[in-house]
């Protein structure tokens, strides 16, 4: 038995990955189930299944069925947002070859915030806010892509993406200034909504297909290039000598992480730390191999945000906290701890 384990490392590697992913998928289902059961009126598991049956049959009449509809919608929105942010985080970290990067570092979320807040300030239709956020994020991505084109094409050299990173940081701070400007001239009755949006809030989300579609397409892309990402994370620009089209890969990573960030931010505002902490924790637990890390981090990110959002709506019920507060409160100490541990290595 022992000798067999030594002889077949590839088999072991595969079995380990399958085990981890199975557990994570199960955890994701459990977290959603948990989120549906918990609240001002808690539902037991048999009640949940009965309610689910009513939903499926299409005549939700009981209180449980109504509650389930509300909570399930919100839990699913939380899941897709968390999964999207974590995936965007891993991609951004691979793109910048920096494990401390997060999806917001390049100012894509800043662009979304500028879009969303101006929609809240000048108009007040809720649907417009989401579209404006998405538009703002895409506008910033486009601007970045133009400004850092040389860097993304790889002719700038060392593959550490300093040009892209610097451009992004400057654009992010520009967006920050615009946000502050809008907050300071906003009338009081709109201010609260604007602040909640900035922190990240899931209470007003509806079930929509777009974030799921974006997430699934990005996940397919990510898994297809996972091995190439490993090679690039190791060798930067010299990955080309191993047959990687580095520029194409970097452009793909940039576009998808921008699209993911835009999708997440326009669903739920700029929820912080998920895109940073979850990939980090997964890397810490299971290593940096992107073939496992990409699917694992995205599942863990979804589960994490479902649980954080359940906490956000129950911890001082009936009042609700924005979920961004919870993720930050959990994220800051976890991040500091991890940073400290890395440093000690």
């Amino acid at each position, binding site marked *: 038995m022992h000798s067999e384990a030594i002889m077949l490392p590839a088999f072991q590697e595969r079995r380990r990955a399958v085990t981890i992913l199975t557990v994570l998928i199960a955890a994701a289902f459990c977290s959603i189930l948990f989120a549906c059961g918990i609240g001002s009126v808690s539902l037991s598991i048999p009640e949940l299944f009965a309610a689910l049956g009513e939903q499926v049959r299409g005549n939700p009449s009981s209180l449980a069925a109504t509650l389930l509809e509300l909570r399930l919608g919100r839990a699913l929105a939380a899941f897709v947002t968390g999964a999207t942010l974590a995936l965007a985080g891993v991609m951004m970290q691979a793109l910048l070859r920096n494990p401390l990067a997060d999806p917001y570092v390049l100012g894509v979320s800043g662009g979304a915030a500028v879009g969303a807040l101006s929609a809240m300030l000048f108009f007040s239709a809720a649907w417009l806010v989401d579209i404006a956020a998405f538009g703002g994020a895409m506008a910033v991505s486009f601007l970045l892509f133009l400004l850092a084109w040389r860097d993304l094409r790889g002719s700038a050299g060392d593959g550490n993406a300093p040009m892209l990173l610097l451009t992004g940081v400057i654009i992010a701070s520009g967006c920050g200034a615009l946000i502050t400007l809008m907050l300071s001239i906003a009338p009081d009755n709109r201010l609260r909504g604007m602040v909640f949006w900035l922190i990240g809030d899931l209470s007003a989300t509806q079930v929509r297909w777009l974030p799921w579609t974006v997430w699934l397409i990005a996940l397919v892309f990510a*898994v297809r290039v996972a*091995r190439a990402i490993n090679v690039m*994370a190791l060798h930067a620009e010299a990955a080309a*000598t191993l*047959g990687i*089209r580095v520029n194409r890969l970097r452009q793909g990573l940039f576009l998808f992480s921008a699209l993911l960030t835009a999708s997440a931010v326009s669903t739920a505002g700029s929820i912080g730390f998920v895109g940073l902490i979850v990939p980090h924790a997964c*890397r810490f637990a299971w*290593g940096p191999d992107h073939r496992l890390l990409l699917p694992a981090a995205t599942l863990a990110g979804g589960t994490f945000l479902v649980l954080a959002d359940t906490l956000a709506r129950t911890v001082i019920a009936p009042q609700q906290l924005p979920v961004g507060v919870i993720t930050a409160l959990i994220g800051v100490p976890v991040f500091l701890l991890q940073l400290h541990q890395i440093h000690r*290595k």
Partner: protein
Amino acid sequence: MQTLKLGLRIGGRELVAGLDWTVEAGQCWCVIGRNGAGKSTLLRTVAGLRAPDSGSVLLGGRALSDWQLLALARERAYLPQGRNDAFGYRAIDTVLAARHPYQDDRYWDAETDFRIAHAAMRALDAGHLAERDVRTLSGGERQRVAIAAVLSQETPLLLLDEPASALDLAHQVGVMELLARLCRAEGKAVVLVSHDLNLSHSVASHALLLMGDGEWLAGPSAEVMTAPLLSRCLGYPIEAVQHGKRTLFIPAEESND
């Protein structure tokens, strides 16, 4: 591998002009020159990471730009000078990554990949480092793991930029002997950049001297690695000393000038 009228320039300065150079299977070339003479630039150009400023680089009779990147990756491996590890990969992962050109549509590594990777690590006396986080390795250990990765890429042509620079004496000799054996026994072609004249002289069958002003000199090491030529190439008087069967190069004392 062949270069035709290859010219390299950096920042308007001419490094190499009109280089006609052919590397055949079984040859071990050593590239010698001062700092900034264009050794690494030449290697990067030959590896295909940088376009030539004039002339062309051919591999198997075809220009590098006509090759598919993946096919090219099965023909030549490149060891860059510095390494910068952002993520905590295990040493074995970094070696396995060099199997990428052979994994077309497989998602996970095959048992063969593991076998080749482990064998390469053992050949460099790095077998015991397999499970270590690369960021915790010493400079010399990391270097050996990187050379193991280049070996497990299984290419006929190896381009190595200062492979022995960070190694201790025993491992320097070990790596050089390994490279010489690869040329002799497996018919691989090796091009290496090194500042250690004695070490290179012991393994190199051929040498390319870059003068730093566009001039160059290529030929069998017995003809090219002589005290007067090396002195001119490195800009410092060098003496050749006979020690048994070996020729040693030492910097001449200023007073002997």
